[in-house]
């Protein structure tokens, strides 16, 4: 495991050096990425200028939800890199060559073409999160849950990225479907669940449990009652949801690799 992390960093640092060979391009991409992700928070802010609250939640509370899910997907995106392009790696035979190297395949796939500009997304989400956090009434348990929330959220999005990429072991390209779940999941969780009908919230809790990315732990941290009256222990269950996601993704990856058919030549 430690070896895998070291190898990830070595491969990633090589790509960082490569991308720094073109500094202008790096800064343009980084700033572009920062502005693009920042734009959806501007939209929420504009919305909240005109109405007092959304689903019973204020602008700072929504900022907290937004920052938490944003950090989760930003860290996951930073780590998984181009895993969503797995189909392309299969078609070009690049995956074959990776399979002949003594580093776990997933580490190589995720570290491939590591792009430091992805830090822009982490930065943007951090800014919103820290700003919103200044309005929170902090206690030690709340702080611990906040750490656990960001870690679990990252693991959930990481697992979604990897697990959905595995579909490409069977079909040529499924990036669009995968995006619907990953980036779609991110957008859904930018809003308080109280704006959705109860059925959807239950689906996002028990079927595809992405509500654990931020909604349940945030209820705990913000000291709010669950608008749907669901059990309170759910507010501390994010690590369990994250472990389930991770297990499913690991299984999908393993089965996918053993099912791998390579290409013609």
């Amino acid at each position, binding site marked *: 495991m430690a070896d895998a992390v070291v*190898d990830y960093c*070595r*491969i990633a640092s*090589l790509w960082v*050096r*490569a991308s720094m060979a073109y500094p202008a391009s790096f800064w343009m991409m980084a700033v572009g990425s920062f502005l693009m992700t920042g734009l959806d928070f501007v939209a929420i802010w504009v919305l909240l200028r005109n109405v007092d609250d959304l689903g019973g939640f204020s602008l700072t509370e929504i900022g907290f939800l937004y920052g938490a899910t944003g950090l989760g997907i930003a860290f996951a995106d930073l780590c998984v890199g181009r895993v969503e392009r797995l189909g392309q790696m299969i078609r*070009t*035979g*690049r995956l*074959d*060559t990776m*399979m*002949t*190297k*003594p*580093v*776990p*395949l997933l580490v190589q796939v995720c570290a491939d073409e590591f792009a430091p500009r992805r830090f822009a997304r982490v930065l943007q989400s951090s800014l919103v999160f820290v700003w919103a956090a200044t309005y929170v009434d902090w206690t030690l348990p709340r702080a611990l849950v906040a750490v656990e929330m960001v870690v679990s959220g990252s693991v959930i999005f990481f697992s979604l990225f990897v697990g959905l990429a595995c579909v490409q072991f069977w079909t040529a390209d499924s990036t669009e479907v995968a995006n619907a779940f990953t980036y779609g999941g991110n957008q859904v969780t930018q809003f308080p669940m109280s704006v959705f009908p109860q059925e959807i919230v239950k689906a996002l809790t028990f079927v595809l449990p992405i509500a654990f990315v931020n909604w349940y732990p945030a209820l705990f941290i913000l000291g709010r009652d669950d608008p749907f009256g669901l059990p309170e222990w759910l507010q501390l269950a994010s690590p369990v949801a994250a472990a389930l996601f991770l297990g499913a993704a690991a299984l999908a990856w393993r089965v996918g690799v*053993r*099912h*791998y*058919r*390579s290409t*013609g*030549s």
Partner: protein
Amino acid sequence: MSLIEVSELRRTFTVRRRVDGARRKQRTEVEAVRDLTFAIDAGEMVGYIGPNGAGKSTTVKMLTGILVPTSGRISVAGVDPSRHRTALARRIGVVFGQRTSLWWDLPLHDSFDLLHKIYRTDPARHRTNLAEFVELLDLGDLLDTPVRQLSLGQRMRGDIVAALLHDPEILYLDEPTIGLDVVSKGRLREFLRALNRDRGTTLMLTTHDLQDIEALCDRVIVIDHGTQVYDGTLAGLHEQGGSRRTVVVDLVDEAPPIEVAGAVTRRVEGPRQWLSFPADASAAPIVAALATSYDVADLSIQEPDIEEVIRQLYSRPPSEPSGRPSG
């Protein structure tokens, strides 16, 4: 126990194809490799040949652990490749002729450096190996060039260095000379021969080019339609396949079919004539006889191509099962 052991190896692929205008695609099983059994000892240089789509690459991918066999058993250096792929990777080197395992956008030097780190080779050993391979393959001037700017031949040499830096016991080469010019081919073959001689590296190469085999391999395994059709020496293959080489002669003037000892005239077209002779015979006496008895403007010799040899092998009535003596 041999270094590489393969027994009753089989791999099928499910393909979906539309059968004669049928609306729905049907699933069919295609056997890429079936009932393959062979063993390769440490230090051997084995040519693994066969026509396109015969199952060569599929076999190499199973030997390296990339593909999981449908059934049968493989043992490479004592382990099952698909189960211990990452561990086995330290002990083998793989070169796919048509693709690179180098990092496309990075200078050659960075790729080598990264390989050194992820294989965790001893730094001193890495330096010696790198210096030696770079010298032998003449890559010194190219180390700072990004891989995408290298020519095919340069990239191939880079890939071979990359596959060898960690002192693998086995080197698999999949079509290593494809697309290379004659000089590059010659240099590469010389390098591989020295590698086997000096370091005892076991070599298995798949190729289309019979000259690769002639220059390098004592032993040939021929595969066609997924099954092994021959395992033995190259001379034995020519003998069994009854393969023949051809002398193409351009005479100064048109003439009746040439008669010369040891060769048969197959075709006459104006001043040009085609004479064939057994592939294991020397061309020298035939060329000498032609030069003394006829007014020759030009001549060239064509090697039998692999497809032809295999076709011959198949069209003959099956005699005793081909193979080298076991044990």
